[in-house]
């Protein structure tokens, strides 16, 4: 990596342009709003993580000796609600997307800065509802809110929790709207669609899902609230409703929501792989269009969550075929990243380690998804730990590894500081090992028939559960260490310079941290994306021996 001299005079940037709490809470700067999201999303990640600790501690023994069944139900529900609605969905788009999208397209800000700030406040309002539920007694429906349990039998705060997710959805819609308009209207002169970084393509596709899918979950949760509160029949057969209709409407959003989590991660990986191989991504156009294909096909596969409901077997067959088809654009990305690395000069810096982790873990997650898309096999595996392992491989192994790769990749840009290299590599290794030890045994448990959402289990399952709990403690350490050294780096990290990795995007051509207006003068793009000029390659080649080199703008 290439770092700037420690004596470099601190220049005016978005962090020091204004001071005081008010300047942060009323800011319209996309970079500051991204930092607000970073703080809030991290807080929710800690809350969700603590729930995971309780779950794994409880499951370390076959008996229910830490939590009773009712409390356990509430703990895994809140783990799911917090992690999905308040961490995974906003993590990359609202933090990295907010920070980087305008920078990557040479714009001064997003198209609607006030709406951007509003989205953060809406997110926080939804979060307040979530926290209220958490501290006043919780909810026990699972994050899926299935009817008729949620509308008729549950004693928890179902309406409040649904309201939290409902409100939070509007934050997502506002972010998606902002991204789409920004990409359409605010690209720098010369930045055509096929010169856009793949990160931007991924966020564009994600935004389409946010705009088209989120209103459906909002309406669904609203109907749930009406049925529970006012007994208006939508899903309860006693009132003339259809409980499977709830599952249809819920998964119409919630399956594409997986792609809201994973597509931005894929965007990160494309940037990281290209940078650390110093090569244009193999099949740029295919990767770009595969993001759009995932967004489109991802909407047509939701019925594979309903095979064991009373869904028609004929509908199930169609959903099964479509689910296999959606694997194709995902595989295109994996193959293209591998082809990019082929014969490349791969630099194993920390973001690249996370990216490699992503590729392996997401592949396992994706392939086990095909098991579950097969109607016959799914009857055996539905609601077992196999499903839990599968979606954690996608969401944690995929989305969070991508998030960690992105945070480590752009941290120098966001803060102007480098983090300690050795510790960051140790953390990446611990995360990979801890993750696999946590979730791989769960595939075996699920195959053996251990159902999810139970706090007691037969003693023969204990060995795998102990392995899983042991892995979770290593995984927790893998997340704790970056938390410490990233905060440490804010004060003590080496100055980063504008382009510490030798990357090609526009965001690397401005100062680190960037000034409030992003670019002193509007950039004009004259070349294709990911063009590694001899100047950049020379800079990378000379970097290992010149760690305190003063870096100037490239391009």
């Amino acid at each position: 990596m290439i770092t700037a001299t420690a004596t470099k005079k601190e220049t005016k940037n978005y962090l020091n342009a204004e001071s005081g709490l008010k300047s942060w809470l009323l800011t319209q700067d996309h970079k500051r709003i991204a930092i607000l999201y970073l703080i809030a999303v991290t807080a929710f990640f800690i809350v969700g993580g603590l729930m995971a600790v309780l779950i794994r501690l409880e499951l370390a023994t076959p008996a229910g000796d830490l939590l009773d069944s009712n409390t356990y139900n509430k703990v895994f529900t809140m783990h799911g609600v917090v992690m999905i609605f308040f961490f995974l969905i906003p993590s990359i788009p609202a933090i990295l997307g907010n920070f980087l999208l305008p920078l990557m397209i040479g714009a001064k800000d997003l198209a609607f800065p006030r709406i951007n700030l509003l989205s953060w406040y809406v997110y926080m309002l939804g979060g307040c509802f979530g926290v209220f539920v958490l501290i006043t007694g919780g909810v026990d429906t699972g994050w899926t809110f299935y009817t008729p349990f949620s509308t008729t039998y549950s004693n928890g705060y179902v309406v409040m929790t649904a309201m939290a997710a409902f409100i939070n959805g509007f934050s997502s819609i506002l972010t998606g709207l902002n991204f789409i308009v920004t990409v359409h209207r605010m690209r720098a002169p010369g930045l055509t669609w096929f010169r856009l970084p793949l990160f931007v393509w991924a966020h564009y596709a994600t935004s389409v899902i946010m705009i088209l899918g989120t209103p459906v979950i909002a309406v669904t949760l609203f109907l749930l609230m009406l049925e529970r509160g006012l007994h208006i029949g939508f899903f309860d057969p006693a009132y003339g409703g259809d409980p499977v209709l709830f599952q249809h409407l819920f998964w119409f959003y919630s399956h594409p929501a997986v792609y809201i989590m994973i597509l931005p991660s894929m965007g990160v990986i494309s940037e990281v792989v290209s940078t650390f191989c110093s090569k244009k991504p193999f099949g740029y156009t295919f990767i770009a269009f595969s993001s759009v294909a995932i967004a489109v096909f991802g909407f047509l596969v939701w019925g594979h969550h309903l095979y064991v409901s009373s869904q028609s077997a004929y509908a199930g067959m169609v959903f099964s075929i479509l689910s296999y088809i959606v694997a194709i654009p995902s595989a295109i990305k994996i193959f293209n990243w591998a082809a990019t690395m082929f014969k490349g000069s791969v630099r194993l810096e920390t973001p690249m380690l996370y990216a490699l982790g992503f590729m392996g873990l997401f592949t396992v997650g994706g392939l086990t998804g095909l098991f579950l898309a097969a109607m016959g096999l799914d009857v055996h595996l539905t609601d077992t730990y196999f499903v839990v392992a599968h979606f954690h491989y996608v969401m944690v192994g995929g989305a969070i590894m991508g998030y960690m790769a992105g945070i480590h990749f752009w941290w120098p840009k966001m803060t102007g500081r480098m983090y300690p290299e050795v510790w960051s590599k140790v953390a990446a290794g611990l995360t990979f090992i801890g993750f696999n030890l946590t979730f791989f045994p769960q595939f075996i448990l699920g195959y053996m028939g251990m159902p999810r959402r139970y706090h007691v289990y037969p003693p023969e399952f204990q060995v795998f559960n102990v392995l899983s709990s042991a892995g979770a403690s290593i995984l927790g350490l893998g997340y704790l260490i970056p938390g410490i050294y990233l905060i440490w780096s804010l004060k003590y990290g080496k100055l980063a310079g504008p382009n510490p990795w030798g990357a090609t995007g526009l965001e690397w051509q401005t100062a680190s941290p960037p000034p409030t207006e992003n670019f002193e003068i509007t950039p004009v793009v004259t070349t294709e994306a990911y063009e590694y000029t001899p100047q950049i390659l020379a800079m990378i080649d000379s970097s290992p021996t010149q760690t305190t080199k003063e870096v100037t703008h490239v391009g």
Partner: protein
Amino acid sequence: MSASHHNAASHDNHEEHHVVPVSVYLGVFFALIALTWVTAWISTIDLGPLNIYVALSIAIFKASLVVLFFMHVKYGTRLTKLIVGCGLFWLILLLFIVMMDIWTRSWMGVPGR
């Protein structure tokens, strides 16, 4: 990606906004009130299986008025119309695929019944 720089001010993307006369807004507003009244009135008449179709037709017409006039889609660019069309298409897709399940559930018998 390499880039040169220039000092041009941010390019002006603002387009001429269509000014809608207040009379159009008032006309749409009163049409919506009137159609709400029609919905309530028609619910008192038993049209048999047509009840749902009539009620939904009025609702769709009202929604169209809101989208076209209050949301300015009628005066929007082709891109705006395309995006609204995509949203509508997606809604139809959702309804059609859900109905695909409901229509075919009885095709396969239930064991034991």
